[in-house]
């Protein structure tokens, strides 16, 4: 049945390429916003262009503290109490749409743009 195998292979390659193409609109934009989430709660939304000097943010989690380093380009996890440290090895995210996730600590970092973050219904002054 080798013919079907080839067809499947070609099909999957096309599918994956499509995935990459759709994902392509993520070049660095000036309005990057870092969304810091823990266990379904959005803790902070940080406008990266306002970060002049790099700084660390600490996220208290079940097993300790996850430490995130942010600068005006992006963010990465510096330290985490998780066992595998996968989140640290994901490196730094700099493009919108990119994410870093630490599953055991339920931490999710996402880069998005100001436009996507949505207008306010009103501002109370």
């Amino acid at each position, binding site marked *: 049945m080798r013919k*079907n195998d080839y067809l499947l292979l070609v099909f999957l390659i096309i599918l*994956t390429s499509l995935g990459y193409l759709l994902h392509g609109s993520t070049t660095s934009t000036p309005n990057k916003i870092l969304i810091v989430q823990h266990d*379904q709660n959005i803790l902070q939304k940080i406008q990266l262009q306002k970060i002049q000097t790099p700084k660390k943010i600490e996220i208290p989690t079940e097993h300790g503290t996850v430490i995130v380093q942010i600068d005006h380009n992006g963010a990465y996890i510096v330290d985490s109490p998780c066992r595998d440290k996968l989140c640290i090895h*994901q490196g730094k995210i700099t493009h919108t749409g990119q994410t870093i996730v630490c*599953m*055991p600590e339920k931490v*999710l970092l996402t880069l998005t743009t100001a436009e996507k973050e949505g207008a306010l219904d009103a501002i109370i002054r």
Partner: protein
Amino acid sequence: MPSSAKLTTKELTQLSILLAAAVTLRIIENFFPYILPVPGARLGLANVLTIFVLISYGTNKTVLFLAARILLVGLLSTGLFTPGFLIGLGGALLSFSFMSLAVEHNWFSPIGVGLLGAFMHNCGQIIMAVYILNSLAVLSYLPLLLAIGIPTGLFTGILAKILLKRIKL
């Protein structure tokens, strides 16, 4: 090809040995989680055995096999009902559903089954991660994970084919 529904002693013995091997392989793989830049990406060697069992024993017995493997790996390595466990479960379920369909309808050779299994395993993992984190943001990993899944899927498929040729049950 698939035999009757009951497990003979011979089958039980064979499956137990294969189970031990699969559990060991998966646990060893879990020790190297960051070889590739994407969490959840792995060689998938344990899947070689799943394909082997699927083709040699049929869907029903593979369900038992997989359930036992997942449980054992959970107890010994990832922990039960941790996020890591649930993600692995999601991947295994989706991958198995498609692989068993493929085998029952004889769509592909073991190579194709391996390819399909790896692809679906990654999809299942991402879907589970989206559900657990309640965020679509993790979908951004999908293209890279799928790209890695193609060569690893081929690899496991080829290994399964070799195994099937060499081992006479």
